[in-house]
């Protein structure tokens, strides 16, 4: 990549102005608009969150807001949100991984394509309509509830309700399992038959192959997918808002309440500190996810 610098100079060492202006023009047209756009609508708002989170109500520098974050009810909200992210990642990643494995290893080309396109549709179904769909299906009088009752399964025999922690996890699986299938399938697809054959011919059993080659290869991808699911459930807002109507303390919902002004004026920058907390938790999951995905992609091709 760095050899490009050399091409700006011709043999005598004078700059090749044509190539240089061409490159500059490219940078200006190709990169500058993106940078300007992101600065105004992305970096500037985030910078604003960062600095006002360190201000008290009179605009003075203070750690007060961050002190609040570790007080109740916000501490519980963080615990709940992280718990929701983890539980929902566990409940979606395992079935998703099994499904991806079965489809990639045993499914035909047609089935693989069908699953890929259905998954990419479902993975993008979030938000309010999803919540209402589940309320219609699995609510007390929901059609699916009644249908399952006919089959002898009463989902309301225990203390399950859709408007609880378990209910939210249940709804999230609807887009998280497909998300897992999308992200994890390339890892399984990447394990080549030749490797299995090579291991076989060197005398490895099926079990040995998976233990020593297969699993170590797909494990990082599994972790990456898990982190993605965690981050998506941790920061999801719309579905949780529509379902819980504020009965469960989750950080995004609390920030929503603060923004809506249902609070005392002295807490105006508290929401910013909570948002920074979310950014940190989310970055801790998403950055390793992106790094692992990048590295894993090298052999998945």
């Amino acid at each position, binding site marked *: 990549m760095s050899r490009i610098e050399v091409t700006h100079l011709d043999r005598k060492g004078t700059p090749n102005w044509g190539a240089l202006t061409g490159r500059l023009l490219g*940078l200006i047209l*190709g990169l500058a608009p*993106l940078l300007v756009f992101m600065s105004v609508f992305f970096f500037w*708002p985030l910078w604003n969150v960062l600095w006002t989170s360190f201000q008290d109500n009179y605009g003075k520098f203070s750690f007060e807001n961050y002190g609040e974050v570790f007080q109740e009810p916000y501490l519980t909200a963080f615990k709940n949100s992280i718990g929701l992210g983890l539980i929902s990642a566990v409940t979606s990643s395992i079935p998703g991984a099994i499904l991806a494995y079965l489809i990639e290893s*045993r499914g035909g080309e047609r089935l693989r394509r069908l699953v890929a396109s259905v998954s990419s549709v479902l993975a993008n179904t979030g938000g309010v309509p999803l919540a209402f*769909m589940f309320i219609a299906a699995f609510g007390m009088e929901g059609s699916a509830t009644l249908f399952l009752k006919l089959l002898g399964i009463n989902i309301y025999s225990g203390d399950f309700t859709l408007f609880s922690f378990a209910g939210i996890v249940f709804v999230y699986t609807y887009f998280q399992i497909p998300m897992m299938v999308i992200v994890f399938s390339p890892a399984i697809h990447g394990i080549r038959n030749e490797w299995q054959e090579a291991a076989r011919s060197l005398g490895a059993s099926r079990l040995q192959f998976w233990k020593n080659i297969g699993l170590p290869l797909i494990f990082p991808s599994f972790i990456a997918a898990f982190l993605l699911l965690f981050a998506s459930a941790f*920061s999801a807002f719309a579905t949780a808002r529509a379902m819980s109507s504020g009965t469960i303390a989750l950080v995004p919902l609390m920030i929503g309440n603060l923004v809506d002004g249902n609070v005392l004026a002295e807490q105006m920058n508290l929401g*910013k500190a909570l948002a920074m907390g979310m950014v940190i938790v989310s970055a801790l999951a998403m950055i390793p996810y992106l790094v692992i995905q990048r590295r894993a992609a090298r052999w998945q091709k």
Partner: protein
Amino acid sequence: MRRLRLGSIPLYIAVAISGIYVLLPLLSAGEFSLRQPATHNYGLEHYNWFIENPDFVHYLWLSLGLALGAAAILLVLLVPTAIWLNLGGSNVRGLVEFLTLLPLVIPVVALAIGAQTSLPEFAQTNEFVLSFMYAILAMPYAYRTLDTGLKAVPLKTITEAARGLGAGWLRTIVLVVTPVVRSTVLSALFMTLALSLGEFTLTSLLHWDTFTTWVTTMSQSNILGAIALSVFSLVGVFVLLMLIGLFVKPASNQVSLEEE
């Protein structure tokens, strides 16, 4: 022959379970939305209710307009950049990839709370600011779609060939580049539309009303109507996203974020 293999049984079971799991909520919600509690019959009462509601058309058009705005902004911004990078024009590819992925790392709620207080006055009083914000949110997906699609065609070779055969830049762009990138650009467009149409978090936190927030407001007075609306919009978005499948080649038919 493969149908008879015992090894495939777990696959069939898994596919059957998944199929039921995907379809059951959808069909149940569809059934629920056709119920008419007053007469214990099925009918289109709740669908008629929202179709006759003037707000429905108003908010649907508004959401469509905002989504189209977001798609236009994003395509104007990203298509030239993606083409430029795929022509081998620069060594900033890594930087662009990093930048376009960033919105994925930041929770939408955090961006919303920042946008609420930091955007300039004119942006805060004009709902088209949402188009710009939607463009930010859809950027990781749209850029990936564009980049993956463009990588699959030998863009550099064919433009050089066109130039070598005497075509000017304009001719090359219109007759060679455009047809090649069309399907990729269309799938990025649909992706952005689908994401923007369903956006709720940012919209509600910035106190604007669009189709999705209107559905939520309506649910408080008419839950059955809101369910009918949800079924309508889910089916609409499904159709939109399925269209992507028609334009994208199977290998890149996914929103995954891995490097090629």
